[in-house]
């Protein structure tokens, strides 16, 4: 080990002292540089900075962009802005807040609800933020406060744009709502580097399309550099960068159709999703009951919140998007596709369809919904009469491994990718799914039993899908396997250029199934509405062609040997009524999935809604039972409304 350098203490010392001097000189030079900078700022630029600081303080005022409008496919406005005065307080600038509020109450009508809301916002905000005490002042109130403004430091009357959802409950589960930016939103904006763009903005999309398309709707904040005097009043504008208004959303949804669907539902609970199979555009998207989104914009008061939260009908839940239900017999068309594609049955094979089905070596009876059975049937007839025993046997013969892959391609059991947040994925049962789902349980619960598949064959068992998935699946089936991603927004219209950005204009994928199989299943579904079919009543006097499938989803299991007796069961335990359909059969323009909760047989409750809906969509005829109630603007004036809003 020979050192690289010969050690020489004197040389080392000299070397070290030299370095010390170099470092010292360097530091002194850098400090001189700093002093030079100070001289530049404080002597040469003194006048400039002094002017900025002392007499005319420059402030930068954000100019808020107008939030984009949301309109339906015909240009009817679903979410709009209107201007109104608000009374706002800045707590840090007020000597005695309670006294000020008491004084203000003499000038404007401040309700206990206003005050409660203000206290709540006060707790969530910082001292120097401007907090609204009363929104939507009348002209007279605004004038009165403005005339007395000198008495109230920290009190401002501001003209602001407000969001309004004119169709309230009707669009609540589609549009969602905006609300005040809270701590969590603020942190997210900071993380995403968007807080500058939200300077002066108090609102942000919280749920629904308002949240998903937030970046489009919000726009780009502008700012104005103004000179202010010592009292903070603006004297003149120096520079102005205008804001860029938010982009408008044009939906595929037809608000008239949405209202027809809503009226057909009446007071019943459930969900309806209608899709244009040719584009994937969502024509109607309903979850009943809804709620009034306008309540949430300025923070909901505790009374209304409690009322919504404690309602046993759960109006806040988006059933179409997040409700998962066993599909019942509406699953059978997909089963039929799986059977044909895997060659598990021929198109003309006739098999027994008795009153009940038993597994070899078991006494358990899987009963048919028709207590006498249907004798025997081929696949098409089994769909038409909805024979359970036929499909029990079919499922048993096929096994889950032949069913799940085909059915899964229709999008069942996974999120469809619609432009809404929080979509439920549902359950398409497979062996792997069961092992994972019950991983924490004993082996006997995790294991896949051959018998598990039997009830899956008729859409019961572990099957569980959202109404949106069912509508999407039926639309794909109706469109011969050309699948689109369902989307509520059809185009995003740029506020400046007027150019549109189309959403999902191209097919997402094409299912690799035989055309003749599609034709066969669709014809079978068409026969459901013909004499002998479970929904034959619906087919009476039909001016166009329609295909459908009824379904009844069990909510509770009925004991062996017992009979289902609706009147004996509490309402929440009665069966759900399903109907899926599309029309016209030759070139489908609309596909729908409808579930009416606890309403019994599919043919009884859900199916008539589909007929009314299709009648309106295809022939323009408003169903007689509801024609008097429609509130939405008629089609011919819709364009005028859109023009007026620009």
């Amino acid at each position, binding site marked *: *080990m020979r*050192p*690289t*350098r010969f*050690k020489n203490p004197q040389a*080392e010392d000299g*070397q*070290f*002292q030299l*370095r*010390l001097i170099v*470092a*010292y000189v360097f*530091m*002194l030079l*850098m*400090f001189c540089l*700093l*002093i030079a*900078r*100070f*001289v530049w*700022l*404080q*002597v040469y*630029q*003194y006048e*400039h*900075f*002094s002017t*900025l*600081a*002392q007499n005319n*303080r420059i402030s*930068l005022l*954000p100019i808020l962009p107008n939030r984009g409008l949301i309109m339906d496919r015909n240009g009817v406005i679903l979410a709009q802005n209107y201007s109104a005065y608000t009374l706002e307080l800045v707590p840090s600038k007020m000597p005695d807040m309670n006294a000020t509020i008491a004084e203000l109450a003499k000038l404007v009508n401040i309700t206990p609800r206003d005050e409660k809301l203000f206290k709540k916002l006060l707790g969530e905000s910082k001292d*120097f933020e401007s907090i609204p005490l009363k929104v939507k002042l009348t002209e007279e109130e605004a004038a009165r406060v403005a005339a007395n403004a000198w008495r109230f430091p920290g009190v401002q009357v501001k003209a602001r744009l407000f969001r309004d959802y004119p169709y309230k409950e009707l669009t609540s589960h589609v549009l969602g709502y905006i609300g005040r930016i809270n701590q969590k939103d603020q942190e997210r904006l*900071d*993380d995403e*580097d968007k*807080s*500058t763009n939200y*300077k002066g903005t108090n609102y942000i999309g919280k749920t629904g399309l308002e949240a998903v398309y937030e970046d489009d709707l919000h726009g780009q*904040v502008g*700012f104005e*550099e103004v000179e202010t005097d010592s009292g903070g009043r603006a004297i003149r504008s120096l520079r102005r960068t205008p804001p860029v208004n938010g982009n408008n959303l044009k939906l595929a949804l037809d608000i008239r159709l949405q209202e027809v669907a809503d009226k057909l539902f009446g007071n019943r609970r459930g969900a309806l999703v209608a899709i244009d199979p040719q584009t994937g555009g969502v024509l109607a998207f309903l979850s009943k009951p809804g709620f009034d989104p306008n309540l949430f914009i300025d923070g909901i008061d505790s009374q209304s919140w409690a009322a919504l939260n404690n309602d046993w009908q759960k109006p806040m839940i988006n059933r179409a998007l997040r409700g998962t239900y066993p599909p019942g017999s509406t699953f059978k068309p997909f089963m039929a596709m799986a059977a044909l594609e895997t060659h598990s049955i021929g198109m003309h094979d006739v098999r027994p369809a008795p009153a009940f089905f038993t597994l070899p070596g078991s006494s358990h009876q899987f009963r048919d919904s028709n207590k006498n059975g249907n004798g025997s049937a081929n696949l098409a007839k089994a769909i038409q009469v909805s024979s359970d025993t036929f499909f029990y046997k079919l499922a048993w013969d096929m096994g889950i491994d032949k069913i799940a892959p085909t059915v899964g391609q229709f999008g069942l059991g996974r999120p469809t990718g619609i432009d809404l947040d929080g979509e439920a994925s549902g359950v398409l049962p497979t062996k792997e799914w069961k092992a994972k789902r019950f991983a924490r349980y004993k082996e006997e619960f995790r294991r896949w039993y051959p018998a598990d598949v039997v009830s899956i064959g008729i859409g019961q068992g572990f099957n569980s899908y959202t109404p949106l998935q069912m509508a999407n699946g039926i639309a794909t089936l109706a469109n011969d396997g050309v699948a689109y991603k369902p989307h509520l927004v059809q185009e995003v219209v740029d506020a400046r250029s007027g150019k549109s950005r189309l959403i999902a204009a191209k097919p997402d994928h094409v299912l690799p199934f035989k055309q003749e199989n599609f034709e066969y299943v669709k014809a079978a579904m068409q026969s459901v509405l013909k004499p002998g079919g479970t929904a034959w009543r619906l087919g009476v006097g039909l001016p166009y062609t329609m295909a459908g499938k009824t379904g009844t989803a069990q909510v509770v299991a009925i004991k062996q040997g017992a009979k289902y007796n609706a009147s004996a069961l509490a309402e929440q335990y009665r069966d759900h009524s399903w109907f899926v359909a599309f029309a016209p059969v030759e070139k489908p323009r609309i596909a729908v999935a409808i579930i009416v909760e606890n309403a019994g047989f599919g043919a009884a409750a859900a199916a008539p809604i589909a007929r009314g809906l299709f009648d309106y969509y295809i022939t323009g005829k408003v169903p007689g039972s509801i024609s008097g109630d429609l509130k939405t603007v008629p089609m011919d004036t819709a364009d005028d409304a859109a023009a007026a809003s620009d």
Partner: protein
Amino acid sequence: MTLQPHLIKRLWLAIKAPLDGPLMIILGLIFALSLVVLYSANNQGLDKIDNKLVYTLLSLTIMWLLARSRPQSIMNFAPPIYGIGVVLLLAVHFKGVTVNGSTRWLELGITRIQPSEIMKIALPMMLAWFFQKYELSMRWWHYLVAAVMIAIPCALVLKQPDLGTTMLIAASGFFVLFFVGLPWKVILGGMIAAGASMPVVWNMLHDYQRRRVMTMIDPMEDPLGAGYHIIQSMIAIGSGGPWGKGWLNGTQTHLDYIPERTTDFIFAVYSEEFGLVGNIVLVILYTLVLSRAMMITAGAQTLYGRAMAGAITLSFFVYAFVNMGMVAGILPVVGVPLPFVSYGGTATVTLFVGMGMLMSIGNARR
């Protein structure tokens, strides 16, 4: 009765003995000045003054304990402290608390610590210890080992991400190398290489870091966002003029225009109220600290002493220069407090620890 003054005198002598007189006087002046500024910056509130007195007293105690220890004994703690520092940084990486997108803190139940702060002292200690140990058998590859010792904490802190602290830690390590005799041609070569790699580094930076650099070049680019701090603090300094607006009369300060005005931007408050004259006084005080520290460094007897004292001195300079440069708009905004003036306990403890070690090295030559 007659014993009492005698006792006090003895106690005074015992306390005074390990401390460096000139350094204590200059630091005392800076401290007095910092209280004056803090009172104004905190809108004449006394709460922060109280806190500052408490943590300064605590820091002084630590400094005193270090000053009366032999450098040799302090040096022996270098490997364990460095080791603990690295472990804590790893802990931050896996279990740290994330604030504003950076993971810098470790939750310890009662308090949060920032392990990167420990590294500012631990890294130069470790390097100085290492070179002392191999002083007589130094070969070129010892520099490679040292480079790895620098790279480990730097990589971990950079990952948090905390570019400012990374550069401070790297600088403190480099200073040790500089004083143990890293050849000039390596230094110059390194500088050229660093200059050449700037575009690569630029691509590796986070968006917010790039924005800070861009903001420094043109603050008006983003006047509502990132440029706001810089514009407002430059207005404060510039409008202070040659003589300042006078104590408690800073309009920028008292109208809430200066962000972080008790911590990182306290210099803007000082500069607005005391003007160019005040700035020069502060820079002179800092220069005096540096000069005295340089003298101690020059008199150090061991390689460890020289390297450590030199690194502490230069690091101190970097803190002061970077903070004032950032507030004056010639350096990007990085979270570096103004030494001995900014409000904040952690940074103060680190500074006094450095001073204590410096005094310990100074005492060893007597």
